[in-house]
């Protein structure tokens, strides 16, 4: 239709008003504007503010701040005695948590994806930790891992094993904190994997079995490639989540013993709310964000090779 005819139909004079298409666009923008506004104010705004704060000498005790350039970053790399150790601890925590969490999620999904009687009950049970308060989770596990009166060591004593004082020995504390956090979200990954498994077409599986493939071959060569997109997603979100764990550390060990479980998010909290140095804390937060982003980008780049083309 010509523009002239359009204008004739809608009765608007030429050049005066918006075309239908423009009006529809405007309507669309206005409808999404609350969400976008929320995003800008609540998400993007603070992120930009943190980047700006990281370039300032800013304290939590006053609203004014002076520009400091890259001073905070220089301090982090050159003179902070804790920074490197904390990066390492965070890396170990993530490297431990992701395989445990994703692996258990996949295993439980494989066991519970056949829609047998009782599967739903077990799925609900495994999902319970996901909906449990993180505070309650950490507090109860902390109680369980007490050195002498704790149920876990008492149980081990029955078996004749003397358990260590789990949360007071640096290495064990990190192990316990990693494993207990990994267990919490297994249910969520399980649900994602179940959905993915149930989306695998039956024909290749049946064909493979007819050809004499055993369960392991079926899993390794048929199911895994189909699960690759879901696995990729789960690994990425688990990794991102593991680099943000703070509440669990605070409640189980408060970064101890001997700073063995001091991960970067906890150190950021310490710098911001105990030492009141929000400029430095912001710089640490920027570094954490960049690291997380970098790892995610790396995984995206690797995705091409690992995840087969989806149909």
């Amino acid at each position, binding site marked *: 239709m010509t523009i002239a005819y359009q204008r004739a139909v809608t*009765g608007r004079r030429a050049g005066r008003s918006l075309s239908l298409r423009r009006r529809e666009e405007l*309507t669309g923008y*206005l409808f999404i504007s609350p969400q976008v506004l929320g995003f800008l104010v609540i998400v993007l705004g603070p992120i930009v503010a943190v980047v700006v704060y990281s370039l300032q000498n800013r304290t939590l005790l006053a609203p004014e701040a002076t520009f400091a350039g890259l001073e905070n970053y220089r301090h982090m790399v050159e003179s902070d005695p804790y920074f490197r150790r904390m990066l390492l601890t965070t890396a170990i925590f993530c490297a431990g948590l992701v395989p445990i969490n994703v692996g258990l999620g996949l295993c439980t999904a494989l066991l519970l994806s056949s829609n047998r009687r009782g599967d739903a009950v077990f799925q609900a049970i495994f999902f319970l930790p996901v909906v449990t308060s993180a505070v309650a989770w950490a507090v109860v596990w902390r109680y369980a891992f007490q050195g*002498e009166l704790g149920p876990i060591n008492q149980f081990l004593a029955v078996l004749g094993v003397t358990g260590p004082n789990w949360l007071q020995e640096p290495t064990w504390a990190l192990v316990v904190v990693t494993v207990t956090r990994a267990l919490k979200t297994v249910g969520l990954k399980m649900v994602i994997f179940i959905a993915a498994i149930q989306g695998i077409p039956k024909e290749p599986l049946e064909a493979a079995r007819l050809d004499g493939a055993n369960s392991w071959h079926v899993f390794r060569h048929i199911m895994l490639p189909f699960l690759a997109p879901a696995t990729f997603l789960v690994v990425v979100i688990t990794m991102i989540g593991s680099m943000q764990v703070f509440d669990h550390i605070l409640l189980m060990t*408060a970064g101890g*013993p001997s*700073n063995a479980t001091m991960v970067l998010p906890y150190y950021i909290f310490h710098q911001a709310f105990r030492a009141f140095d929000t400029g430095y804390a912001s710089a640490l937060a920027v570094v954490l964000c960049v690291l997380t982003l970098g790892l995610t980008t790396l995984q995206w780049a690797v995705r091409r090779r690992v995840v087969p083309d989806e149909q």
Partner: protein
Amino acid sequence: MFRRQTTRASQAARITPRIAASLLVAALVTSCVGSTATGEGGSGDSNQSVTLRFSMWSNNEAHVAMLEGFAREFRKTHPNVSVEFVPVISSDYLQKISTALAGGRPFDAGWLGEGDVSQFVAAGVLADLAPTLSRTKGYELNDFIGKSMQSWRRGDKIYGVPFSTSPFLVYYNKDLFAQAGVATPEELTARGEWTWENFRAIARTIREKAGPSVYGFQGHDGALYDNVTSFWNTVVPAIRAYGGSIWDPSTGSCDLADQATVDAIDLFRQMVAVDKSMVPPGEQADFFAGQVGMTINQLSRTSLLEEATFEWGIAPLPSGPAGPTSFYGQAGVVVFNASPHPDIAAEFVAFMTNRQNVETMAEFFPPARQSVLDSPAFRSSNAAVGEAGMELVADQVRQGESFPFPANFADVNLALKPELDKLWSADADVAAILRQGCEAVESLLTTS
């Protein structure tokens, strides 16, 4: 000329964007106007109505009622001033007041723990109260026991007034003592034998007699291993009794490796690792649940014993080679510089810490004013503890001294904690560990 033909759809397409747009604008306008800040009313003129916002960490009804009573009295001499008391959960307290400061909407005045004063003074956010206090008639600043102002003074400036000077005392479980057949602290004090050595022996006996789920001694708040402040609250009584000292932030010298200090801290190590009479790291046995024979804590914890299933008592801190000792922790009232009405806020602080009001507060908070400590009213103010107990408290306040808080306590703690964590094994070399602790913190020790 065509007639205007508007279909319903195009009508809607014309109106809806306008409705949406106007709703959006309305939302933006109301959010920008927002809530008006109280306490804004110019620069504290006596003609304008002023509301002071006062932060506190207790939501105990009796405390709030008492403070509101002070506000009403203050209004009689300052008719345009009202005070709004804002209770904040104590675990969030520092965060709340610091974010209020950072956000440019600070409280006018409020409570502050003495451990935080140094950091706040170093940041320049506390107002100097000395001019207001000296010109308040009948205030009598000298009525405050000299040492009680230690944490709040910097030279001639006064950054806060302590409203609670709470000594650390030994709480003990009378039932467990009777069960173990050991002499009570009162009996030992009468004989002059209430020493740290006997304390240790009692803890060991209780542990031996009462079994594996009962301990002889628990550190302050059960948090001795997690929280450096609780560590100090537990060990400083022994350090002082042994004649040791910790550090001097004004000179930057660290005395942790001195023999007396080493001996005092080694006492606790032996109780944990050798006698096994002290609640060890990671265990959650609690005195207030009746599972431990003794603990060290402040008077305010008697509120946890209201429904205790056991008989309990309080006792002074044991004495050591350097004699008897006292140690207290304080909370004070401060005024924030960034308040819109610092002068009026300072006047209110002066009012609420005058002699009469300190006497009223003494029902809940041990006072630092000599005249109130000496009064019979104070001695009979706590029925659960009794007169003898309150006389003990008064005595401890008169003789005691605070902890020497450095300006950057958080950084010092972060550096010191990993060393302290190594103290608790049977073969730990306490002197070497404390020497390393000194090396870790010496460069950080400053006062504000």
